[in-house]
């Protein structure tokens, strides 16, 4: 079980790797807008993040994910339910 801080760190690393430019990532960063990612790219990136935490994030939950922190909360919740 990871802490929210750990999850934020790992999610930020994955996002940095997929970003074309060197951008600063915070908990409030808007994933789709900041990285100019379309919905499919976000979902493909999500698969990498899912492997890091051994969880599957349902698409239904992604509808409410806007910021990095939203995603951290979803992963934290799924991990704690395991």
């Amino acid at each position, binding site marked *: 079980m990871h802490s929210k801080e750990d999850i934020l760190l790992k999610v930020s690393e994955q996002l940095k790797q997929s970003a074309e430019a060197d951008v600063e990532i915070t908990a409030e960063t808007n994933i789709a807008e900041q990285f100019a990612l379309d919905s499919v790219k976000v*979902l493909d990136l999500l698969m990498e993040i899912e492997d890091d935490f051994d969880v*599957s994030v349902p*698409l239904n939950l992604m509808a409410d994910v806007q910021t990095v922190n939203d995603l951290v909360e979803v992963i934290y919740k799924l991990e704690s339910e395991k």
Partner: protein
Amino acid sequence: MSLFDKFSTFLEESEPLLSIKPDIFGTKIEKLYSSTEASIDGRRVLLAGTNNYLGLTFAPECIAAAHKAIDDEGTGTTGSRMANGNYDGHRALERELAEFYDCATGIVFSTGYQANLGTISGLVGSGDVLLIDAHCHASIYDGCKLSGAEVIRFRHNDVADLDKRLNRLGDRAQSTLIVVEGIYSMLGDTAPLGEITKCKQKYGSYLLIDEAHSLGVLGDTGQGLVEVAGVGNAVDFITGTFSKSLGSIGGYCVSNHQQLDVIRYLSRPYIFTASPSPSNIASARAALVLLKNGNALREQLWEHANKLYSHLLGLDLDLGPEPGPVIAAQLDTTEEALRIWSSLIEKGIYVNLIFPPASPKNKPLIRISVSAAHTEEQINFICNTFSEIM
């Protein structure tokens, strides 16, 4: 903020593509000469982007059956299958499709899109899980959304990833429907169905395969990938469309689970729409007979597909992983994709042009579909034209 503000943004961003003539996203077919030739923008062109895999849209048997149905039953049913739109022909086609797949039951829908929408949302509901290949068609994604179930994607054609995700579900794997396609519409590759079937059996899950692009194309009798993989009985639900190899419009689901029939009372895309017209049903029934006995057509189709695939591979185009009637070349830039599409149209060949997010890997696609009705000269013409413009 107006309702139409989002349209302004869309139109602004899409302007470079929308201003191209002829219209990429709404190419007007002015006149059809045959299943493989038409007039576009005043020019006679070879059609190589139609999904008309067996070339049956002009088959005399299908045309005669459609004419007779119009004469006998009129132009439309004007009602739902649940009300006044349930004709003898609809029921007969359902029986014929079930027999074709050696299944207990079958349901006909008004389109292939609705077959996936109606089957998935009818079978799966809140509390259940849908586990879908990432490259699945929009009709599958939309059916998932309508179902209200938990929806999880697995990596395209990656059985290890599917296994991992089923394992994570624990007991919930037993109320999970896995969804894959026979031939994937974007890159034309097939699913590793044997391994997927073993995986679903290991976890006690259910499996649905969409044979939209593989019906009539794969297997000795044209059933699709289930026939080639020899796993028909292990697949729980098979969906497909009449609008590709059968040259009509409509869709179906067949199954050995008799409970499939219950979705006639639950599936909104089945209930709340008019049933397929009598002529569509009649031509699909006639085409199904031709498809079953269509080995010569399939041989012709595969000969064309193999020849074109190897020729394009020789031109260093980034093609899908295997030859088939859907041959897609991934391009690095929108400009290159547009250049190829426009050059082909100028030289008299129509193909499909697809942009992300509809195409995978964030790359534009030039997609060619081959037909059994193409002549050897027409396939040579496509090969030579690609050689000229690449």
